[in-house]
């Protein structure tokens, strides 16, 4: 495979000292990335390392707090993604971003439809142009077809065509192969090679080592919002790359906690999702006083599995036992009654009630325990309990009447943990418990988790952060593509072992 030709010495793209802060967390800390034209530049790092945030800054979706972006040596600051496209930066997003009810051609030309002399859309030209484009890229699809009727992988291929069609000098691909088959990946690589020939700079974000070594010329590694460095792929090995991504030693310190691992509290047998692409045939046990870590890469279906156990998602087969009793037709209500609590991954989407105050956000899952004889709520007691839990967790808030949306991510998370502690659970599912939380608050959450298992509760912790998985878990179960690829005991829990299991089917 031909390595890129270097036409000149200027970089196609330079991002220098990019810093971006979200409330309560520094997502990017002075990140610098330089990409040469006619090369494929892989961007790697664990989930949450800041890759996507960096690309969103490039693309004008986020505005960086400080830093400079240069295109072909000239400084640019994109107002929005439209502006970025006009300047020759296009992006294939991780999630499909098409309009399913419109045709392939209409999607490709969305926002820049060719017009005829009356100022109306020239459908004929649009379809013709699309046909040529698709033919050049050897994509076998008719321009008139409704894009939503195509397979997900074909839709993804069309998005790639769209990104290419802007004649961009920089094309960003954020995990473009996550829904492609092997043959389609080969096809994509062919397209990428074409782009390289045309002197385009391709930024390629992926977790898949094999792909990086096949297609990329250079690789930059990010960790915890910082750029670790840029390297020639030719000088890289699998092991080197992994150790760069995870960091040689865990930067975070974890609190000491001594818990007695006891009897089985939760047992899951052969749990399968009705969706064949989701979790299949997963079995595991969690014991009293134990933290079971769940590892895996994005798309490993960890969240889906947790949601199924908590009854948010349907299951096709399999059994769930709590304390030895089988629970049929699990719903969140039943789960709570049986002493399970769930802190969801998506704090905004399914965690907080943004316009409710701290007190109500805390008590919402335990209202039943605070009814008087007339079945009216005992507001005073409820509030006192909310205060008690939030105090114990050291939630920082001006008052209990403050709306939760005005707190930082870490404090929001503490309120949500308080909410579940108030339901007096035996088993707590924590999906990415420290996502988007700064280092100090992370440590406090680890301490809380330690105290909980010391009290004899069981915790299932889904985490994409290796140090967290290794530092906190008694055992780690690893999923890959919806299947359990292994359970590691504390002694076997190394980053390499987890990564090996997490990429088993890739």
């Amino acid at each position, binding site marked *: 495979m031909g390595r890129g030709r270097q036409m000149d010495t200027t970089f196609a793209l330079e991002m220098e000292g990019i810093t971006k802060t979200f*409330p309560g967390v520094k997502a990017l800390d002075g990140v610098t990335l330089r990409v040469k034209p006619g090369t494929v530049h892989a961007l790697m790092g664990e989930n949450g390392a800041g890759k996507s945030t960096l690309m969103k800054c490039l693309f004008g979706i986020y505005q960086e707090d400080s830093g400079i972006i240069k295109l072909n040596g000239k400084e640019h600051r994109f107002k929005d993604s439209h502006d970025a496209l006009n300047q020759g930066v296009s992006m294939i997003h991780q999630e499909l971003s098409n309009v399913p009810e419109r045709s392939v051609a209409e999607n490709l030309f969305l926002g820049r439809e060719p017009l005829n002399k009356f100022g109306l859309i020239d459908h004929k030209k649009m379809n013709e142009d699309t046909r040529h484009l698709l033919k050049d890229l050897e994509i076998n699809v008719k321009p008139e077809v409704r894009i939503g009727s195509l397979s997900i992988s074909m839709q993804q291929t069309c998005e790639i065509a769209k990104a290419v069609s802007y004649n961009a000098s920089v094309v960003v691909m954020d995990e473009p192969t996550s829904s492609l088959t092997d043959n389609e990946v080969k096809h994509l690589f062919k397209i990428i090679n074409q782009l390289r020939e045309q002197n385009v700079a391709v930024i390629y974000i992926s977790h898949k080592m094999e792909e990086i070594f096949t297609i990329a010329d250079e690789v930059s590694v990010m960790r915890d919002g910082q750029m670790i460095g840029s390297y020639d792929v030719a000088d890289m090995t699998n092991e080197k790359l992994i150790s760069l991504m995870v960091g040689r030693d865990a930067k975070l310190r974890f609190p000491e906690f001594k818990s007695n691992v006891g009897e089985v509290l939760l047992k899951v047998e052969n749990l399968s999702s009705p969706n064949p692409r989701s979790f299949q045939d997963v079995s595991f046990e969690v014991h009293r006083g134990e933290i079971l870590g769940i590892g895996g890469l994005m798309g490993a279906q960890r969240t889906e599995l947790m949601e199924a156990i*908590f009854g*948010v998602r349907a299951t096709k087969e399999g059994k769930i036992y709590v304390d030895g009793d089988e629970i049929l037709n699990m*719903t*969140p*209500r039943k*789960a*709570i009654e049986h002493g399970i609590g*769930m802190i*969801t991954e998506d704090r905004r*989407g*399914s*965690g*907080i*009630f*943004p*316009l*409710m105050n701290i007190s*109500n956000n805390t008590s*919402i*899952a335990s*209202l*039943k325990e605070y*009814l008087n004889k007339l*079945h*009216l*709520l005992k*507001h005073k007691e409820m509030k006192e309990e909310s205060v008690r839990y939030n105090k114990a967790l050291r939630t920082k808030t001006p008052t209990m009447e403050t709306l939760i*949306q005005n707190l930082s991510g870490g404090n929001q998370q503490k309120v949500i943990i308080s*909410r579940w502690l108030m339901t007096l659970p035996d088993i707590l599912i924590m999906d990415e418990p420290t996502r988007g939380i700064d280092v100090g608050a992370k440590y406090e959450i680890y301490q809380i988790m330690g105290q909980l298992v010391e009290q004899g509760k069981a915790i299932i912790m889904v985490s994409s952060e290796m140090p967290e998985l290794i530092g906190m878990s008694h055992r780690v179960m690893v999923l890959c593509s919806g299947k359990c690829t292994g359970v590691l005991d504390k002694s076997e829990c190394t980053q390499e072992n987890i990564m090996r299991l997490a990429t088993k089917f890739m």
Partner: protein
Amino acid sequence: MKKLLNDSKKVASQYTTWVTFVGLLLLLSILTNGQALRWSSIRNLLIAESVRSFAALGVGMIIITKGIDLSIGYVVCLTASVAASFAQNPDYSSAIYAGQTFPLIVPIVAAVAAGGLFGLFNGYLIAYGKLPPFIATLGSMSIAKGLQLIYTKAAVVGSLNQNFKNISQGSVGPDPNLIIYVAIAALVVWILLKHTRQGTHFYAIGGNAQAARVSGINVERDLMMVYFYAGLLYGTAGTLLASRLGLANSLTANGMELDAIAAVTVGGVSQNGGVGKVSGMMVGVFTMGLINYGMSFLGVDSYYQQLVKGFIIIIAVYFDMKKYARRA
């Protein structure tokens, strides 16, 4: 000084509803040399807005759950017709049930039940049928209208007996019954929203339905119930309206859905769901009433009233959106 300004800004944005209401009231009292502030004037305002209050309380709860109800006007119209049909004088030859006398309880129960049934129908479609509230209630609006026309054969249901008319037209001392009914309804809805589990669930569902589900809330059942409760309130509104007017026809309560939605919106019930108080809903109703009433009092052409009302709604929602806009 700057702090004072900031503080007063904060208060103004937090209590937009009240500030608007008090401001309008003061303006009106200045323009009328204090006449508008007399109890007799205010009492008239309360009477005029009483039936709308019921509709507003109902749709206010619905909007808190992030829903909407377009069927209010015709459901109230239908329930008013049902109530009236059971309260006609037996000697009235065009009566729907000519020659029959029903106890006073029958029209009340029939109308409230009809309202409740419509509420359940709406609620079922929205909660379990997953229809968008706008569409579900658009359909039931037309159904209610059709049923009303079929039931009354498009005729006026008039000649109601005095006992029935006294429900609304009677008074306790100088104060009309209607004011008392409104106070009771507001109190009941306040207790429901503020002091019961289900009321808290309504806010949770409107604020973040997915988080509500994860918190163990039976979202579907609670959603259905909110439409049911609203239906009961519409049924009550229908009864009171028929009783107050002494008749019901196909024009009764026309457009009440828009008045009620506008009123609660002005009263700070957010269309984004999860936000709203009974006090706000009531103030919203009276603010809208005050605009109507004040402008009539001042002799402003009714065409301008529509215009002013329109602007007030838009301004109220504009500030509402700003207030709860997500920080990016």
